[in-house]
């Protein structure tokens, strides 16, 4: 089971409920195929940097999930066949990314330190911080 992150852009010309329905559909698709959704990040409507299929705005969603290695092919096929998804991108989450997120989180919670943190100090601290995240997030999600 590996951690993945998929970011996709939904057409904003759909009704709000339809957009929510689409997000739910993909969440269920992930859980239905043996994956676990870790976090769903809705960025909302954003202006696109360039026109896609004649549209200027898109609804961005980022889903963090865990799945096995064969799942990605199915997911991308689903995205491809769905006419309302303008763009999609699925990535494996690297250790470096997890470390970076832990580092940023530690920095935010410290807050007083204006002079920038020293991540080289405790690499072990960063790795253990990663794990509580995984357990916390499912509670947030519901």
């Amino acid at each position, binding site marked *: 089971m590996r951690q993945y992150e998929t*970011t996709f*852009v939904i057409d904003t010309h759909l009704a709000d409920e339809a957009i929510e329905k689409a997000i739910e559909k993909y969440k269920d698709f992930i859980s239905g195929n043996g994956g676990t959704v870790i976090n769903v990040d809705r960025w909302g409507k*954003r202006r*696109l*940097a*360039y026109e*896609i299929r004649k549209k200027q705005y*898109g609804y*961005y969603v*980022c889903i963090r999930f865990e799945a096995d290695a064969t799942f990605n092919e199915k997911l991308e096929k689903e995205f491809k066949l769905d006419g309302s998804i*303008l*763009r999609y*991108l699925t*990535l494996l989450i*690297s250790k*470096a*990314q997890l*470390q*970076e997120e832990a*580092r940023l989180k530690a920095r935010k919670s410290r807050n007083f330190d204006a002079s*920038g*943190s*020293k*991540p*080289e100090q405790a690499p072990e601290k960063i790795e253990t911080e990663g794990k509580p995240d995984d357990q916390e997030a499912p509670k947030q999600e519901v």
Partner: protein
Amino acid sequence: MLKQRKKRMCRFCENGVKYVDYKDPKILLKFTSDVGKIIPRRTSGTCAKHQRQLVKAIKRARHLALIPFVSDGAR
């Protein structure tokens, strides 16, 4: 023009950044020119490792329409 500030530090190394996120257009745009081109390492002062991460992130962000491929400077 470029020989003046030769020994500038990599902005990512200074802050101890380990991973350049493609989802962060604010930072990525700092490393693109006014027409949207990626700024070369010798100009931006980025180290090789971070430049590679940066370029990958920029290309992904362009694919997701978070930053443009080409822009005309005014916008």
